């Protein structure tokens, strides 16, 4: 799967599932970059159909509603751009 990797401080596995057109996803990505942590992200809307299905199935496991962004910080899952929650999880 084509995750993009952003280099930064190692805080364990951080994965962002995002949509390329979504402003909350954009702000989540900006926040992670601003915090200087290493993370991987994927723009689900830009995947080929068969690949997209697999990733959406994964996302639905973490977030049954299937909304974006979904942020996995270790075992923790945050749904939506909840700045305080993200900052706390990375504090």
């Amino acid at each position: 799967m084509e995750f993009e990797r952003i280099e930064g401080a190692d805080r364990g596995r951080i994965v962002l599932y995002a949509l390329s057109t979504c402003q909350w996803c954009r702000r989540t990505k900006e926040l992670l970059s601003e915090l200087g942590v290493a993370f991987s992200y994927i723009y689900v809307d830009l995947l080929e159909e068969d690949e997209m299905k697999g990733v959406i199935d994964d996302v639905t496991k973490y977030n049954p509603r299937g909304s974006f962004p979904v942020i996995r910080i270790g075992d923790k899952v945050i749904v939506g751009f909840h700045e305080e929650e993200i900052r706390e999880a990375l504090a």
Partner: protein
Amino acid sequence: MKKLPDVSEDEISARAARLQDEAEHSGYHLNPDVSVTRHLVRGLIANEKRYGYQACPCRCAGGRKEDDLDIICPCNYRDPDLAEYGACYCALYVSDRIAGGLAEAAPIPERRPPGSERSESIYRQENAVPSALPYPVLRCPVCGYLCARDAPPEHCPICHAMGERFRKLF
């Protein structure tokens, strides 16, 4: 990996201006944060180019219009979200308070039902017509606008057709 269709700054400006006019004319407001609004408008235009309809930029469209009718902007959830949270899900549309700079749009929960529960709640059509109504329902023959009142408005508020053209629907 696919590429998002190109959208020029001019296209964004033109669409944002049109949406702004339409919103203000109908008593709605676009998000006053121009960076947010332009990002969302870019997404709307890109979605129109890749899917053929302007799906909400903050939701994952499937590319089949009949499955996404509820998330074509303005989505089915905009008005309930404006009433409850002061902004729609993507925050393109905001309340008077947020438009006036008295509050900021914050992320809100997704109101759209998950895929497995969607068909019944969204696509069901009401077939039964109630037998008794407190007001007659009047229909504009030009644009289909409906209103429940004793007499039609002087002009249709949507398409400005003369009120005397309205007919009672039930």
